[in-house]
């Protein structure tokens, strides 16, 4: 049985349905990210789990206990907020000890736990400081220690990295993941940053307009998006309109050539469909084994270190492709005519 189960969860604010029939099962120790654009309902789902919002309908079960009607302070859930939310009047150590004090933990045990938590986040010497004396990254680490100190059943992270600068964000993200794996704590992470979700999660829930569009591992979400929204939201895509030639064999026509898709099509012969290819699935020049070759002209070249992202104009449409950087092969300059090879086996059929 799952450790955290959300069943038919709904939330409406007046006539506005923010979360629609949301279902999710999370295993113990799993790290799940709720990913989606602003206003998709991901934070509302998190707040319902925390107990800050009452669901309009549906149920929330944690470790076999129905908590839907339980007050937030009775759920034993740790939470990190985007704005850190450290108590300004308490020192770092007092902040970390707050939950333990509320629980009535004895002073000696409390102090030991605070020291343990501060060591865990790598700030053992900062216990006597006030929050305003810390940097953003340090404050968020203290917030993590404070959330973990009372040994919560679930850890909820509400865009905790959004307010930090890029370098701190990456290091804290890795630290959160390490600590989460060490402690084996079930974690739900809300973010609108797909790179963040991809790098840190066991599974990702991509949300759109209050609905969980797709739930899967980062690999599945990126490589096998099941809806047009997921395909477009996660990563960069090139879309092509094709005509179905042989649905059972997965054959489609793009321009003058036939491509074979990885799976059979559930569409009639002659019908129009959309397929998508990731920039890294396209090849610069003619590539053996690739069924289709299209011609275009380079518009932009973005050098990104190990990867060079090329933007080409193909029959009035923009096509993006990535190539690996090679020191002996400079990238084409804008205005150069190029050929791009495509293979049906890399194509994603867009539905929904």
């Amino acid at each position: 049985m799952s450790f955290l189960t959300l069943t038919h969860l709904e939330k409406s604010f007046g006539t506005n349905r923010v979360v629609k029939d949301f279902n999710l099962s999370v295993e113990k120790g799993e790290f799940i990210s709720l990913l989606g654009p602003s206003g998709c309902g991901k934070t509302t789902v998190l707040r319902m789990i925390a107990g800050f919002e009452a669901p309009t309908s549906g149920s929330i079960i944690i470790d076999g206990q129905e908590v839907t009607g339980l007050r937030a302070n009775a759920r034993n859930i740790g939470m990190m907020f985007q704005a850190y939310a450290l108590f300004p009047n308490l020192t770092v150590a007092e902040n970390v000890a707050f939950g333990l004090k509320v629980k009535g933990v004895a002073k000696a045990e409390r102090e030991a736990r605070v020291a343990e938590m501060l060591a865990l986040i790598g700030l053992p010497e900062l216990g006597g400081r006030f929050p305003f004396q810390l940097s953003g990254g340090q404050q968020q680490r203290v917030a993590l220690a404070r959330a973990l100190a009372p040994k919560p059943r679930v850890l909820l992270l509400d865009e905790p990295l959004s307010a930090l600068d890029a370098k701190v964000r990456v290091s804290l993200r890795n630290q959160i993941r390490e600590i989460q794996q060490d402690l084996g704590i079930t974690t739900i992470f809300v973010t609108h940053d797909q790179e963040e979700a991809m790098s840190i999660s066991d599974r990702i829930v991509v949300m759109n307009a209050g609905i969980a569009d797709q739930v899967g591992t980062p690999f599945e979400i990126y490589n096998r998006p099941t809806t047009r929204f997921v395909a477009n939201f996660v990563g960069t895509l090139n879309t092509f309109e094709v005509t179905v030639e042989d649905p059972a064999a997965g054959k489609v026509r793009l321009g003058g050539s036939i491509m074979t898709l990885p799976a059979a099509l559930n569409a009639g012969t002659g019908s129009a469909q959309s397929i998508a290819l990731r920039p890294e699935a396209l090849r610069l020049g003619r590539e053996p084994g690739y069924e289709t070759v299209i011609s275009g002209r380079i518009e932009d070249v973005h050098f990104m270190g190990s990867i060079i992202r090329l933007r080409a104009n193909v029959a009035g449409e923009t096509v993006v492709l990535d190539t690996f950087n090679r020191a002996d092969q400079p990238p084409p300059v804008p205005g150069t005519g190029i050929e791009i090879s495509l293979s049906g086996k890399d194509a994603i059929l867009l539905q929904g």
Partner: protein
Amino acid sequence: MTRIIAWGVFLLGCLYFLLPLVGMTEFSLRMRRGEYSFDAYRVVFGDPRFWDTFSYSLILSGATILVGVFLVVPTAYWVRLKLPQARPFVEFVTLLPLVIPAIVIVFGYIRLYNTSSFLPLTGSALGTDILLTMGYTTLALPYMYRSVDTGLRTIDVATLTEAAQSLGAGWITILGRIILPNVMIAVLSGAFLTLAIVMGEFTMAALLNRPAFGPYMQLIGANRAYEPPALAVIAFALTWGCMGLMQLVARLAKHERAKA
């Protein structure tokens, strides 16, 4: 040139405020003919009625501050947290004591709580003191509410509340350990204004016939020459003392430095 004008305006302002104070203080020292002395102050401090009324008003101002804090902090907190749409209405209600004269309020009290009413508070000294405290709380409401509300604006009330809730805290813990300490300077400023109002209030105390400092000052002012300015100087000293205390507390509260 602009600097000179600015300094000129500043000096004019200082003169406008300081000259009456200097004049009043100088006059309070002239009780003995031909020389300066503290005779007026000696008379004031030697009068047992001064100490009786002063301590009475001080106790009532303490009670008023307590009632005000217990009434206003949870209300302002709740309005910010859960009822932001009710804020204009609550602000309007808290402003009413500024437009309704104290005499109207006290007559209303006397009508409602006289000895033949369902709650005969005016029938005993303690009951009347309670009534007077409530009246003072009403008079101080606009200042206390605004101070606390401004204090609450400087902190993220909703997120701090949720953070405390997620750590298992109930409402009393949240208010007592998180919200109140973080708006303490604002509460102190409201408390100081309340103290100033209560120490000088005349109408309510006089009409409820209680031995407060306001009626005593009026009595002295109507019958003596040198003691009233001495009393006013004492009142100023008290006020500035309170302001100094507030500054001291603000300096001692380390976490408040972040807001400075």
